[in-house]
């Protein structure tokens, strides 16, 4: 059940939204899709779902194209949340689940267990428009997963939620992955992807700029972060050779350096100047990588 995108391209007239994208997402994997606004994430999702035809290339899942005959195996949480405002939660979920090939009685059982899990069982008979936005989003999530999809596509699942709800939703997503679903999700929030995905892809203007396993990406990025907290001024380090970027913080300084060997040199440089409370060499965050890869090409 591998999801495979081979040289996928999508053009709208003269505008190229997705350009020669090739990806392979193994079964039971959580795959993160990153990208600035307009990078082509939603278009890619829509092509995976078969809502849009690609202008070139192939998308297959388990060797077959995804279309309406497989829709009962696929779950989708669109970026723009939307449910029928006038329908009751129960009718809504049952209707959408039946369209995904579920029977009414099974859908009701699933709905109840999901509402319990999200601690909102009392909303079953409420109209969607009466719910708060966060709760609407939970209902939306239930709508995407109620039929136990094997392939789940989540477009910005955590946006607009408070931290408690984000945790709740994250747990749910991880549980689905444990149950054997392949999950593709997109986010602006790097730490979500960092926390949850083994593999990821950073899109920029329709092309993948970074693609692969999280660890490899970080390793191959080369640059590291160095955090120093000390009692003496550290400003002089900003112009130290090998320092790419520097940011002064309340307690000290945060440097981006070209490699581990620079850290060694810096340590020798500052030892003896005073008390060093912290000297820590850190892996680059996904945020750094994203800003570097996407930000650079903005210029």
């Amino acid at each position: 059940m591998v999801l495979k995108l081979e040289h996928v391209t999508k053009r709208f007239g003269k505008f190229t939204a997705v350009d020669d994208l090739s990806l392979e997402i193994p079964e039971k994997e959580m795959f993160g899709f990153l990208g600035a606004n307009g990078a082509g994430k939603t278009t890619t999702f829509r092509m995976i779902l078969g809502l849009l035809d690609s202008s070139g290339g192939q998308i297959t899942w388990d060797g077959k194209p995804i279309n309406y005959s497989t829709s009962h195996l696929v779950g989708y949480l669109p970026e723009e949340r939307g449910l029928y405002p006038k329908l009751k939660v129960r009718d809504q979920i049952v209707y959408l689940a039946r369209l995904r090939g579920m029977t009414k009685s099974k859908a009701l059982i699933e709905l109840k267990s999901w509402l319990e899990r999200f601690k909102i069982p009392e909303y079953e008979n409420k109209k969607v428009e009466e719910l708060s936005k966060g709760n609407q989003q939970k209902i939306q999530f239930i709508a995407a997963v109620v039929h136990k999809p094997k392939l789940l596509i989540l477009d910005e699942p955590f946006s607009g939620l408070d931290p408690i709800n984000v945790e709740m939703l994250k747990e749910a997503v991880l549980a689905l992955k444990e149950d054997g679903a392949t999950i593709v999700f997109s986010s602006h929030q790097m730490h979500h992807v960092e926390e949850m995905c083994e593999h990821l892809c950073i899109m920029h203007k329709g092309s993948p700029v970074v693609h692969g396993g999280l660890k490899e990406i970080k390793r191959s990025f080369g640059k590291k972060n160095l955090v120093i907290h000390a009692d003496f001024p550290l400003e002089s380090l900003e112009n130290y050779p090998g320092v790419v970027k520097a940011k002064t913080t309340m307690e000290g300084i945060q440097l981006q350096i070209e490699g581990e060997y620079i850290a060694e040199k810096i340590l020798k440089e500052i030892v003896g100047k005073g008390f060093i409370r912290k000297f820590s060499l850190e892996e680059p965050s996904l945020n750094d990588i994203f800003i570097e890869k996407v930000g650079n090409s903005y210029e």
Partner: protein
Amino acid sequence: MNSFWIILFHTYLNKLKSKSFIITTIITVVIVLALTNINNIIDMFDKNGGKDKVAVLDESGQLYEPFKKQVNTINKDINLTLYQGSEKEAEKAVEKGDFKGVIQLRYNNEKLPEATFKAMGIADSALFTDLQTGLQQLKTMLAASQINLAPAQLQKLYEPVSFEKFALEKNAKTEEELNQARGLVYVLLFIIYFSVIMYATMIAMEVATEKSSRVMEILISSVSPIKQMFAKIIGIGLLSLTQLAAFLIVGYISLTNNLESVKEGFFGVYGFSDIPIGTIVYAVIFFILGYFLYATLAAFLGSLVSRIEDVQQMITPMTFLVVGGFMIAMFGLGKPDAAFITITSYIPFFTPMIMFLRVGMLTLPAWEAILGIAILLATIIALAIFGARVYRGGVLMYGKSNSFKDIKKALQLTKNE
């Protein structure tokens, strides 16, 4: 169950249970009941059982009986009573409402009758005219006898002139038949016009609601947009048939209950006493085809807007087409055989109303109606294919979209370059 049927019944049942649907149905049923019982209602408000009571002050003492006879032959509903009392008292009685009016009969110098009519108001010209005609006839009779005309001579004088009408066209309907057809066709045309606008708008709203609430994207990832579009069109179509069936059944039962009283009045003249089955069958066919034509149009227009507020603006051109068709049909009611009507009856967007008008009013060869139906069917199929493509792209488009350029954009979205 197939997703097509799920959507169809979801659309149908949801609308059926909605408050607005139930309220409009009830209001219309009340109107239908009122219309079919119009005679009873008029009678109810008329204290004297629909009869106009008029007091007669006969100064001559001879005119009352013959006058009453004459008036009764003209209008049975005028109830004349010889009033024993003074003029003042009679006027008082009229003011009290005991009588509609008081008529004073007397002879003039030439021994011919003349009269004065007094009533609270003189707006009721029908009563006045009937009384006048009655007296006129009486006067003619008296005048004739005064100049000693023999009954045979008198009869000759009154003999109606012979005037015959012939239609050279075979099977042409007589004026009377045309009048009868006109009433029924008018009502059915109005139903077609009204329902097409109402239900087509309903579909456009339905699509736009799903789009603006963004539930559309989940829907189209589950079920193909084309399937959705047709499930919706048929679902709302069933709804319209349900509503119309309710009106027709209520109307029919109510009409047959009042058949006797209704036959005599307004409905009889306009052809409701014996409804030709053919006209009804054609009405149903053209209603269904007209509905599909405009519903398909409305569905894809609805798919182009992102906000419900824009729906009206988007479907305005469509509404104009329906209104235009209706206007032409109204003109055609008076002149169903005009060349203009014949031509427009083959223009697909007008066919449902105008071809129906023609088959209802004229005696058309079957091929003309069939050709009209065929043109309609072909247009519906073409529009459905085109509409489905626009719909597929349109539902994915957001932004300030309310121009027809968006049709191009929507088509481009579905294109597989």
